[in-house]
């Protein structure tokens, strides 16, 4: 089966381009999701989200462009069949932290051929339209990571992109069963870890804080010092945020001393 899957269906036995005859294939429900992103300057992104770009409503225009492009994929990609798509949707997610607009397209039909090219074309053209609409203020924008996320239906079976493994499987470098001490600080300090969702929200997994910067030597003081450093740390004062000192649960009044390991994390969800 593996070798069959590795064959390119758009080439005939002589290796020439070939439009596949799909007349004998069963009609099945097909769906594909593709994604991509366009990176841009924070100022451009702000103008975009505030609706202040000279060409008007950027997102609405890019959405229509993506939908139109999906329907016309067969005109652009030489060996694609013309398809009567039953559904096309193009969604945009403005990510101010990452400095990009993420584009996701979904295409669906009941038919004899897959719709991944349509979804990829929708994402590509939506990104190109975003570029066109914003290029007056930012020429350095970059279209990236246009890729198939998933597809369902068809004889080659379903596909689901494996999630990126950038997130660590376990938190911190500590060996199992040990408290991480790391190198000694020059002056009294605490080591602070942010776990799971909290790590993603503050954008850091750990930091070291000089105890001299802490207004009071307890968890409340530590939270205050961190919030003054960066407003993203204000999430630490959220009621849901939990805290442990040297891997034992602690509250705001708990004392912190030199070389302590303090961890902040969301409510647990194991089991």
């Amino acid at each position, binding site marked *: 089966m593996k070798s069959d899957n590795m064959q390119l269906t758009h080439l005939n036995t002589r290796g020439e381009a070939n439009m596949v005859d799909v007349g004998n294939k069963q009609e099945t429900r097909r769906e594909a*999701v593709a994604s991509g992103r366009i990176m841009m300057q924070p100022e451009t992104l702000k103008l975009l989200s505030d609706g202040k770009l000279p060409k008007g409503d950027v997102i609405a225009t890019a959405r229509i462009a993506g939908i139109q492009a999906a329907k016309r994929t067969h005109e652009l990609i030489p060996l694609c069949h013309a398809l009567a798509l039953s559904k096309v949707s193009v969604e945009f997610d403005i990510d101010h932290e990452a400095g990009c607009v993420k584009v996701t397209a979904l295409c669906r039909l009941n038919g004899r051929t897959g719709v991944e090219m349509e979804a990829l074309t929708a994402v590509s053209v939506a990104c190109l339209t975003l570029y066109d609409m914003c290029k007056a203020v930012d020429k350095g924008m970059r279209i990236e990571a246009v890729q198939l*996320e*998933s597809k369902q239906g068809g004889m080659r079976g379903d596909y*689901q992109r494996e*999630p990126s*493994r950038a*997130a*660590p*499987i*376990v*938190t*911190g470098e*500590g*060996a*199992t*069963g*040990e*408290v*991480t001490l790391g190198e000694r600080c020059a002056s009294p300090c605490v080591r602070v*870890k942010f*776990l*799971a*969702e909290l790590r*993603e929200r503050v954008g850091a997994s750990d930091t070291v804080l000089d105890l001299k910067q802490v207004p009071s030597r307890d968890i409340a003081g530590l939270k205050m010092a961190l919030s003054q450093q960066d407003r993203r740390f204000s999430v630490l004062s959220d009621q849901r945020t939990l805290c*442990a000192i040297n*891997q*034992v649960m602690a509250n705001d009044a708990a004392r912190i001393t030199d070389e302590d390991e303090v*961890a902040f*994390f*969301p*409510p*647990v*969800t*194991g*089991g």
Partner: protein
Amino acid sequence: MNIQVRIQSAPFSLLDGYEQTLAQRTDIGAVVSFTGLVRDFNETPDVTGLTLEHYPGMTERTLERIGEEAWQRWSLQAVYIVHRVGYLTPGDPIVRVLVASAHRREAFEACDFIMDFLKTQAPFWKKEHSSNGEYWVKERTTDMQDAARWA
């Protein structure tokens, strides 16, 4: 106290813990085990997998402490807890708690108790991957209510 705790990324079998617990013992009258699996539906209908993260060190200590509390409350002969971390797909086993005692009631109750506290106190976090994207699983108030039953 005979309490064993393991955190691992590798799968475990549905017999895991039996051999270790029962080897060369004839005083055990009851073994109760619970195995938790990855469902393909949760907060969204199409869960394709999940990533389990934990806090190494604190996780083991928390599970050992929960085992010790069960040991104090009931007359037990063995407690065995294994929990997986890393990327898991629907149908994969996540957690297994096995409790052995002379009589069944202790084993049933202690196993229930350990799971309730594992879910509400052990530092594990699940990130679900679905066809609509990925998100961190939210805690459930029902889990907190379950744990409060033992107060």
